[in-house]
């Protein structure tokens, strides 16, 4: 019994982490139809920035804020001066993000060196909590909580606020939105920056979980892709469902069929793609 409970909680926390990792990717695609290959390096940069800030100020909160600010700025620069030139040319945009992913990964190696690092969770959360026979790290509960909050906030903003309505309008029909007086250019830049910041935030939250090391970007990117492929690109509900599915399936798969550990990720992906190429909740 405690085995299943433990695995369930694990799967949930891993799923919540995956949601934080993948939501930025899904959002940027949903809004701008850009497959951001540099997403993994946004994660990496967020994690490294958090590491530096925590080392010098011991404040996790400050780390989060700094990472958000820096990644948003990078997002603004990238979108405004590079991606915006290729309006509606998705292939060119994907290739640009690919070039940036190479550059960012090497930049991180240059600035922070090659040693694998550890970012400890904030002291208050570094304890373990006992739930009956199961011992569970408090930080993982935090991740579940934060994931839920982020999902809720994203949903509220998109569905219930005026800003969200404007964004959705601009996405559905840019010319119309422009005609209605919406300033589409800065809106797109802002959306991309938001997605980038979200990815960076995922990096900060994920760092105590996964560690900070060169190559973390190419470890995280396939996971994020798995989530958005299964859940469907561009759908918040898809990102939530996809991350939970992947997290729980992966954990139970590793527990029950250890030889097939990578397959537990890819087989569901292939099956879903075969039936519904746009993912469970994807918008075409």
């Amino acid at each position, binding site marked *: 019994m405690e085995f299943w409970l433990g695995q369930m909680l694990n799967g949930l926390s891993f799923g919540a982490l995956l949601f934080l990792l993948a939501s930025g990717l899904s959002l940027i695609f949903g809004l701008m139809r850009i*497959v951001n290959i540099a997403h993994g390096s946004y994660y990496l940069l967020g994690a490294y920035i958090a590491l530096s800030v925590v080392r010098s100020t011991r404040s996790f909160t400050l780390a989060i804020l700094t990472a958000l600010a820096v990644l948003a700025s990078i997002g603004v620069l990238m979108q405004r001066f590079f991606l915006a030139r290729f309006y509606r040319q998705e*292939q060119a945009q994907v290739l640009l993000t*690919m070039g940036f992913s190479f550059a960012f990964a090497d930049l991180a190696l240059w600035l922070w060196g090659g040693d694998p690092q550890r970012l400890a969770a904030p002291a208050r959360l570094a304890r373990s909590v006992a739930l009956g026979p199961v011992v569970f790290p408090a930080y993982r509960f935090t991740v579940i909580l934060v994931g839920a909050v982020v999902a809720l906030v994203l949903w509220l903003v998109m569905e219930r606020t005026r800003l969200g309505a404007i964004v959705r309008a601009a996405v559905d029909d840019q010319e119309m939105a422009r005609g209605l007086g919406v300033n589409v250019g800065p809106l797109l830049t802002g959306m991309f920056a938001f997605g980038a910041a979200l990815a960076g935030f995922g990096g900060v939250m994920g760092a105590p979980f996964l560690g900070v090391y060169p190559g973390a970007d190419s470890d995280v990117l396939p996971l994020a892709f798995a989530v958005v492929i299964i859940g469907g690109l561009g759908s918040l509900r898809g990102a939530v469902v996809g991350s939970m599915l992947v997290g729980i399936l992966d954990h139970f798969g590793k527990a029950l069929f250890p030889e097939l550990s990578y397959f537990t990720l890819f087989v569901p992906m292939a099956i879903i793609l075969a039936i519904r190429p746009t993912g469970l909740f994807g918008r075409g």
Partner: protein
Amino acid sequence: MRMRRPLRLLFLLLGGAALLLLPQFLPVYFTHLLILTLVYGLAAMSLDLLLGYTGLTSFGHAAYFGTAAYTMGVAIVRLHVRPLPAMGVGVLGAAVLAALFGLLAIRATAVYFLIITLALGMGMWGLAYRWVSVTGGDNGLPGILPVDLGFGWPLRDAVALYYFILTACAVAAFLLYRLTVSPFGLALRGIRESEGRMRMLGFNTWLHKYVAFVVAGGTAGLAGTLYAAYNGFVSPTDLHITGSAEQVLVVILGGSGTLFGSMIGAGLVVFLRNLISAYTQRWLLILGIVFIATVMYAPEGVLGKALALAGRRFSGRLVPAAPARREDVLGELGVDAREEGA
């Protein structure tokens, strides 16, 4: 590419002569780099068939390259098949895989095709990594060398291997070229420009795309077997997404839709990587910047740029041009527009 006949012939002769004679005069290491260029170039050319000619961006093309290499390796090392038949088995393996994956992938369009091929590529990497009893897992599969073709052609030294690979690549490249200028190839270009229109004209676009996918996969597989024959070793890194991404990079750098541009692109990447990493560790950063610059300012790639400067209309585009005029497409296919009466 349609250039004036004498000019094209001249380029072919010069290029061919260079490829044939350079290894005799230059240091052996240069020959090694040429071999790598040929192998990666052929794989990239097969990707160009999809990306440049059909407009399908595949981000999982390394899967066919690696699968063929592994199939050949397993056949030789574990099943003791002779090298030449093993190569055939390798190519077959890649083609079968492409046939399977094509069924899943071709239904999707544009971005989803990219995502699906990426996912499938990652899946194959995972398989190579975890199926330790067959593939050796992370340690890889050694022991494929030496390749003795069995008719008195020892391939023990680099130069001999080079000529063998050059022959194989030349034949494959020629066949690919013939494919791209055949009616089938022209139909692919039509699909790239506007699939709807092609369907309306009665073309079975799904079949065209599928066949292109399988051909591309098989050709990449051929490159993979040559690679295995050269290195004597296969490892999961050969199937990793970074390999697929690099193939896309090579095609774009060289010039998508020009076929031979991919060979030039491969040469650029192979030689630059080996040259630059002698002076600085920041090779990846430089590669990233070069790539970004290419996409921004020279999206038609090196060969595309050269052709444009030479005054020729460039037939492959990174950025879709204005939709092809119906008369142009029909004209290329040899149909007189006026007779269609549509």
